[in-house]
C-alpha cells in the first residue's frame, strides 16, 4: 500500500483555525483551547482510519474536541462553567465600523447565554454547520439544535434590542417553546 493519504495532514491543518475558535468558545481561554486542539489532533490522527476523506473533516474534528472537553469537565467534577463571556476576556474589542452594535456588548450578551444555546448558535451561525451536522457534533436531535438556536437568537435579540434584518416568524425552528428553563441569572 502506498503511504497514508497525503491530504490528511493538510486537511487537518486547514481545519485548525476553525477548531481553535470552537475550542475557545467552549473553554473561554486560549491556553485551554490550545491544549484541547492538541489533544484532538493526536486523537484524530490515531483514529484517522475511521475518517473518510472527502467527508466533513471539520464536523469530525469538532465532535472529537467537544467530547474531550466535556469528559474533562466531568472528570474535574464541576459543572460546565460559564466562561466569562466567551471571548470577552481575551480578545480586544474591535471598534464597530458601522455603529450598529458594539461588539463588546454582543460578546457580553453571548456570554450570558446558557452554554448549550451558545454552543448551538455558534456552530450554526459562526462555524457554518448545518443543523444536521451540529446535531451530530452535539450528539442530540436536530430539533434540539434548532430550538437552542432559536432561543439563543431570541435572547440575543432581546438583550441587544435588535430585531435584525431577519426577523422571522414563530415556529420556524422550535415547535414547542421550552422556555421553562429560562434564564439562570
Amino acid at each position, binding site marked *: 500500500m502506498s503511504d497514508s493519504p497525503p491530504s490528511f*495532514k493538510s486537511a487537518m491543518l486547514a481545519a485548525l483555525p476553525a477548531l*481553535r*475558535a470552537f475550542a475557545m468558545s467552549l473553554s473561554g481561554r486560549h491556553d485551554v483551547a490550545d491544549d484541547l486542539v492538541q489533544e484532538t*489532533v493526536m486523537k484524530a490522527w490515531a483514529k484517522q482510519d475511521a475518517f473518510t476523506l472527502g467527508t466533513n473533516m471539520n464536523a469530525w474534528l469538532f465532535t472529537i474536541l467537544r467530547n474531550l472537553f466535556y469528559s474533562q469537565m466531568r472528570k474535574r467534577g464541576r459543572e460546565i462553567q460559564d466562561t466569562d463571556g466567551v471571548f470577552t476576556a481575551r*480578545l480586544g474589542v*474591535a471598534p464597530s465600523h458601522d455603529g450598529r452594535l458594539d461588539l463588546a456588548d454582543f*460578546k457580553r450578551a453571548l456570554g450570558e447565554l446558557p452554554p448549550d444555546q451558545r454552543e448551538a448558535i455558534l456552530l450554526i*451561525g459562526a462555524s457554518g454547520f448545518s443543523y444536521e451536522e451540529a446535531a451530530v457534533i452535539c450528539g442530540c436531535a436536530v430539533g434540539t439544535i434548532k430550538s437552542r438556536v432559536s432561543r439563543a437568537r431570541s435572547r440575543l*435579540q432581546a438583550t441587544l434590542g435588535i430585531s435584525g434584518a431577519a426577523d422571522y416568524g414563530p415556529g420556524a425552528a422550535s415547535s414547542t417553546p421550552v422556555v421553562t428553563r429560562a434564564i439562570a441569572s
Partner: protein
Amino acid sequence: MNAVTEIPTKDPPAPPPRRARPRRPDPLGPDSEIGSRLRELYAEVEGEPLPARLIALLEQLDEAERRGSE
C-alpha cells in the same frame, strides 16, 4: 390538404405561484445582524496565527507515520 394538426405550441403551464409566503431570510445568514456578529467574533480567533506547537505536532505525526510505513 394540410390540415396540419397544429403542433401545440409548448405553452408551459404557468409557473406555480411562488410560495405565497416569501421565503424568510436565513435568520443567521449574511443579512442578519446576529449572524454577521458571530462570524466577526470567530474571524478574530481564526485570524490568529496557529500556535507553533500545533504545527510542529502535525509535522511530527506525519513524519512518524511516514517512517513507520517504510
